[in-house]
């Protein structure tokens, strides 16, 4: 009977594990893990660490939601970096599943869109799994101590920029830089599933 409960518990954990993600206040995982950047060099999140915090964006090339938000994100990251926050974009998609998300395409995309931040390959989707990242784009903002202080969306309207009413990420960064508690620390958004390496 006891054995039966153990099996049920394990099954329960398995069933609900899909909903798991890094929680607010939890420490950044795999900070020192080296990832291949689009400049051909290996880079870890620790190496882009900002004195005021760090912004980690799970992104990719093919997703229409990434494309819809891209211009706003690039503009925002320029401002964010000037405020002392490090920025890194991570592509955890398996290019065997989505050809558009291959390394060469990443280089082209970053050049075309004027990325001012590293865009790295998460081979094996190890960071995506460690963060519990499910989709692109998905935002994780950490304070200088490495604790998660914001998780979610860039703003409240991916597909209609003119109808944006709440600039979640911009507001979260402003609060973080000002040393205030982030008012809206967890937001929701729809995006493309991360096509993880199997």
């Amino acid at each position, binding site marked *: 009977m006891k054995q039966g409960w153990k099996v049920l518990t394990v099954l329960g954990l398995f069933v609900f594990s899909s*909903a798991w993600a890094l929680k607010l206040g939890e420490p950044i995982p795999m900070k020192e893990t080296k990832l291949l950047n689009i400049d051909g060099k290996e880079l870890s999140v620790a190496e882009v660490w900002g004195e005021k915090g760090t912004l980690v964006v799970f992104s990719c090339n093919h997703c*229409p939601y990434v494309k819809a938000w891209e211009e706003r994100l690039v503009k925002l990251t320029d401002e964010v970096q000037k405020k002392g926050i490090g920025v890194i974009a991570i592509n955890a998609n398996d290019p065997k599943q989505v050809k558009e998300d291959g390394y060469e395409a990443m280089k082209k995309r970053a050049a075309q869109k004027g990325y001012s931040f590293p865009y790295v390959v998460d081979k094996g989707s190890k960071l995506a799994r460690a963060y519990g990242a499910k989709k692109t784009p998905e935002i994780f903002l950490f304070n200088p101590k490495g604790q998660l202080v914001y998780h*979610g*969306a860039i703003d*409240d309207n991916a597909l*209609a920029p003119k109808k944006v009413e709440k600039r979640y990420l911009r507001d979260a960064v402003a609060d973080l830089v000002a040393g205030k508690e982030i008012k809206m620390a967890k937001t*929701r958004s729809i*995006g493309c*599933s991360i096509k993880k390496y199997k």
Partner: protein
Amino acid sequence: MKRSLAIGLRLWPVFFLLACAKPDLDLVRGMELKQQIERDRGSVVIVNLWASWCKPCLGEMPEIVAASQKYAPWGVKLYLVSTDIESNWRDVDRLTQEWGVNEGIFVKGEKDTPFIDGLGADWSGVLPTTLLYDRGGKLRKVFEGVVTRRDLEIELVRILEEAKP
């Protein structure tokens, strides 16, 4: 010939209006969808969240529709909830017709955060996602990403076997 042309020219505003007409789709808030599922107690409900531009969504849909139709006599309902914006609604209408789905078609009618919170299904926002609710209205399974007909049917049979009506 001339007469046909004359009639065509007179009627062009009608054709134009018909071409521009927006399909009559049901906008739904997350909370309303949750309430609808609660009203459906006694049925097993499949909720598929999709978008017309989402290739994996379109790829899996014929399998989801086929599975739901196979088990419809046992009280399985299918709700297709599109997250498309208004400019894509004609595609939503066309695609659902192609799949042979005539009812249970909704379009997300509010912004992401209130919709996801209102639905209350712990949905991460990934497209496609398929939610399975049992006859008691309880969320039993979340398929994030593409689901195969086989995996969906295994879960459907498991739920149907538990509590026959």
